[in-house]
């Protein structure tokens, strides 16, 4: 029956230099120590040699230890950097669909029913028109009132034709209703003057 041999310390001698661990250095120490004993059991002849070998092996232990530690550290760093890199790559690939807006820009969703559609110019024109129409409306209403109350006779339609010219150019649009009111009163003054003449 075979009894499996334990890992012999002498196997450390057969390892590749860069694969050595400190444990291997200790195994080497043991084997060399044993071999020295074979030469001289009293140790007289080999004593100096023995301690020089001890010194060399101590240095060897330090080197192997340092080497392995550095290797571990570098591996860890490399792994960290790799995972960082992977993370960054992933982020940038998912981030391409969105655009960031510039400092003075607006992002508009074209499907939004409440999206802005008209320019400022267009808006201005529309408002001006509205104001004119409103003013005309007010004049017409007052006129109607006057007719109703009998101030203005109906037989003199000619007189009635107040010259409601199309409102003057856009420059002179009464921005407020106050100005519209002033026009109105001016007109009514005209009419009252006429009645008196009769």
């Amino acid at each position: 029956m075979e009894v499996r041999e334990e890992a012999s310390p002498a196997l450390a001698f057969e390892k590749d230099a860069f694969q050595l661990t400190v444990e291997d250095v200790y195994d080497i120490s043991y084997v060399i120590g044993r071999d020295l004993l074979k030469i001289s059991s009293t140790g007289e002849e080999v004593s100096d040699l023995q301690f020089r070998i001890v010194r060399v092996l101590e240095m060897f232990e330090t080197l192997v230890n340092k080497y392995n530690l550095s290797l571990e550290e570098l591996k860890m760093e490399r792994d960290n950097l790799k995972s960082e890199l992977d993370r960054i790559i992933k982020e940038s690939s998912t981030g391409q669909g969105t655009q960031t807006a510039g400092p003075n820009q607006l992002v508009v969703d074209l499907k939004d029913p409440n999206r802005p559609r008209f320019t400022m110019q267009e808006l201005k024109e529309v408002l001006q028109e509205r104001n004119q129409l409103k003013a005309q409306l007010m004049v017409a209403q007052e006129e109607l009132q006057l007719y109703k109350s009998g101030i203005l006779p109906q037989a003199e339609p000619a007189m009635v034709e107040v010259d409601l010219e199309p409102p003057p150019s856009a420059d002179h649009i009464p921005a407020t209703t106050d100005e519209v009111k002033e026009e109105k009163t001016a007109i009514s003054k005209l009419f009252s003057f006429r009645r008196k003449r009769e």
Partner: protein
Amino acid sequence: LKLQVSELQRQKQELEVHVEEQSRELAAKQTSALAIPKDYLGMLEYKREDESRLVQNIILDLKPKGVVVNMIPGMPAYILFMCVRHADYLNDGAKLKSLMNAIISGVKKVIMDHHKDFEVLSFWLSNTYHLLNCLKQYSGEEEFMKQNTPRQSKNCLQNFDLSEHRQILSDLAIHIYHQFIAVMEKTLTPMIVPGMLVHESLQGISSMKPTGFRKRSGSIYEDSETYTISSILQQLSAFHSTMSQHGMEQGLIRQVVKQLFFLVGATTLNHIMLRKDMCSCRKGMQIRCNISYLEEWLKEKELQTSNAIDTLRPLSQAAWLLQVNKSTDGDAKEITDTCTELNPVQIVKILNSYTPIDDFEKRVSSSFVRKVQSLLQDHEGSTQLMLDTQYHFQVTFPFCPSSQALELLQVPSSLHLGFLTRI
């Protein structure tokens, strides 16, 4: 990866520079050593205030594995003794007493802190024994000086008698030994019954349904990890290799092995007493086979003089009893003649428990059992069915002088004992 290579290269260069420096230093030391050849006295000087640092570095913090201790396993013992020698040389009783007490407390502490650590226990058992031997060898007492070289006799303690401290140290060694044995027994025990009894390594035997205990629920081994006789042998080899690496005296190793073999034999025998299904001819054969493997192992490790195999005799006889014919008067006589290590209670129990392997074999007849019993009537001795597995042979530490010349010993730097001066 480029980065790694350049980093490693840079480090390699650094290390190369370092190595160069070191070898230059070493060369310098050597030349200075050669220039002034000094005749050393084999002592180590230390300052009183450095005593605790000494104990810390050479006892408490010392790892059982390292360059120095692997090359020169007894180094700690020698270093400590060389300090003892110097305190004696100075005729400083207080210093000496303090040192001895510090050493003993230090070893006690390291054992306590690592009471389950097989390696530490082995290491300090070995070194405590070495120190004990040093104290005897250089005590100046005649009986211990017989094998000394003239130089060694000159190095004996001049002023103080340390026999009391030797006694304390000896007791400490016994304590360490028992702790050491306990740890090994704990490791070995779960392997014994599975490896010696249950596992069937013999081929060509009609396999019956394997008896239980191959899988224990919640135990340390899974399905695939059944202990076999190989497991036991491997474990014994591991123990032996560590003890050897620590430079343990052969005599002590032999005592350890004998104790462990006793455990194996007693545990196995007790188990047979309890289990009818272990009492078969086939099991008998398996046991005898395993015993032969253990014997082979002893030969391989050159431990025949340990008499460890004797501790297996009761088991061996029980195994023989299982195999042998048990029907005629002649058989009965043979049994009583052969089974000298088994008491009547045990023999009868085995006979009654005997289980035939197939239908052709018959159980042992009760008349046969009675016949054997009558033959054993006059036997005196134990009526215990089971053996005491906790029985421990008394350990002894016979004097073993060393041929090491103390003057030749240097203190390697990795022990961090720079505060010691080589005298």
